């Protein structure tokens, strides 16, 4: 069994993103960066399959700037076997990332590709589904449980209003929802070991993919702020305000 896990370097989830002064883009100059939390869950899901399965290789792959090697190392420290970085100077749109990942998938022929359901930077929730389309594979999005039986993967999907169980023949693309698992921490010895694991770096240009942007970012702004509110002293006070000031209850 071979599992490919695409991982993305993003802003740390505790940091509140700010626009640049000229409003042209997001200001990431001082932001702490980390591994996208949903990608961590995806890695954990792959490692759990590996834990049950002697003949299993987990490959972490990222498309991005040189520093994304740090996030691949994090995945290796958690337990992935090797890493691949497709080095790109500037961030790519999901469709372009998907085209790069398709080339890696064609080369590696994984049985399973596990994505995060979304990047917490652009909140796109697209790349996994796009790779599935480009490869002609089935897709299981919003997974909260994964169970491999022979050459079929059964998944539970979290959908609005409930959940569903689906069966997909391998190879397949899955995307991880929050409650799929709780990712393990990398131990110190494993962090040391990860430094020696293979990490192949490829230049974006060598893939021969058309990654020209389809969209122009015209600007980034802060959403309209909520007006500062007030503290009320009692339940009676609250009800009075809701009735007579906000007029949201009768």
């Amino acid at each position, binding site marked *: 069994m071979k599992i490919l896990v695409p991982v993305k370097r993003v802003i740390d989830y505790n940091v*509140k*993103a*700010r*626009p640049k002064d000229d409003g042209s883009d*997001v200001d990431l100059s001082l932001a702490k960066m980390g591994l996208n939390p*949903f990608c961590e869950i995806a890695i954990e899901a792959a490692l759990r399959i590996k834990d049950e399965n002697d003949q299993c290789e987990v490959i972490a792959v990222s498309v991005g700037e040189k520093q994304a090697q740090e996030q691949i190392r994090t995945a290796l420290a958690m337990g992935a076997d090797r890493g691949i970085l497709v080095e790109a100077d500037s961030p790519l749109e999901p*469709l372009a990332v998907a085209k790069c990942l398709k080339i890696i998938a064609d080369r590696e022929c994984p049985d399973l590709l596990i994505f995060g359901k979304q990047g*917490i*930077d*652009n*909140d796109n929730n*697209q790349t*996994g*589904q796009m790779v*599935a*389309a*480009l490869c002609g594979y*089935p*897709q*299981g*999005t*919003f997974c*909260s449980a994964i169970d491999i039986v022979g050459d079929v993967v*059964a998944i539970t999907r*979290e*959908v*609005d*209003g*409930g*959940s*569903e*169980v*689906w*069966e*997909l*023949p391998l190879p397949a693309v899955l995307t991880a*929802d*929050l*409650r799929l698992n709780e990712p393990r921490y990398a131990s110190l010895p494993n962090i040391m070991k990860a430094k020696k694991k293979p990490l192949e770096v490829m230049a974006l240009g060598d893939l021969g993919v058309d990654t020209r*942007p*389809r*969209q*122009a970012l015209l*600007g*980034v*702004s*802060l*959403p309209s702020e*909520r*007006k500062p*509110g007030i*503290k*009320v002293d009692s*339940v009676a006070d*609250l*009800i009075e305000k*809701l009735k007579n000031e*906000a007029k*949201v*209850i009768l």
Partner: protein
Amino acid sequence: MKVLIIAQHSEGVLDATTLNVVRAALAISEDISLLVAGCECREVAEDARYLEGVTNVILADHPCYESLSAENLSSLVAEMVPPYSHILAPANTFGKNVMPRLGALLDVQPLTDVLHIEGTDVFLRPIYAGNLIARIQSNDNVKAMTVRTSAFPPVTRRTEACTLEVVDKAFDLQLSRRTKIEIGRSDRPDLGTARVVVSGGRAVGSSENFKLLYSLADKLNGSVGASRAAVDAGFVPYDLQIGQSGRVVAPELYIAVGISGAIQHIAGMKDSKVVVAINKDADAPIFDIADYGLVADLFDVLPELEAQLC
């Protein structure tokens, strides 16, 4: 400009979000087709003919669309695309499943969660958990997008029906198979469209205690939501989670009970008209965005609140 909307429906009923998506479509064009794909879903298509703004309903009725699998549905829509300039679906687990797959088939870059349409090619969408709004120009010849339904008011129904067109195309890729559906049933209004949402956090403590929130919600004819911490702790089902990775709601009144107000939670409720926060900790970040804050123990407040709301 011609818009195609991919309708979501289940058990013979058109999903309520469709009405919001039609409103978004009206900001682009007056030529709006609505696709109802499914199995034995003629009734849904008939119903959709009465939606304000919809000029044509397209019915694709075949067993291969029964589960609305992204694989089959995206293949069908990809075939239908010329003449459409825009393709819209709701930004929920249905739309987010199918739209990117369709985008890749058409070789276009879709937009997720559009919350404002400035023109036929310029759109606003939230990024970074809604902490920022991106203004984006799409240069693809077909603009594919999911729309944040809470940002567009629903259209109404009219008495005249529009045309109904039947397409007879089956894309049966047999790539995936749905084997089970579990839909939480309740008599309460749907979380996405409820006028009032009472939401509980970790501090509520148990599913037993959540009954306090349900009964308050019932009194206000509202629905119940939750933070991730409450959902992860198993107090309520997963699909009640509100936030960056859950549902996005914008009710008239949102009451946050024992919720700290992490950015990921706020991402899902900050467009509510009036926000009430009940929290023991006067410094909880939820108070920064609440119109009315009550620093108190939820176990004192909830019974009192219910008693005083006659």
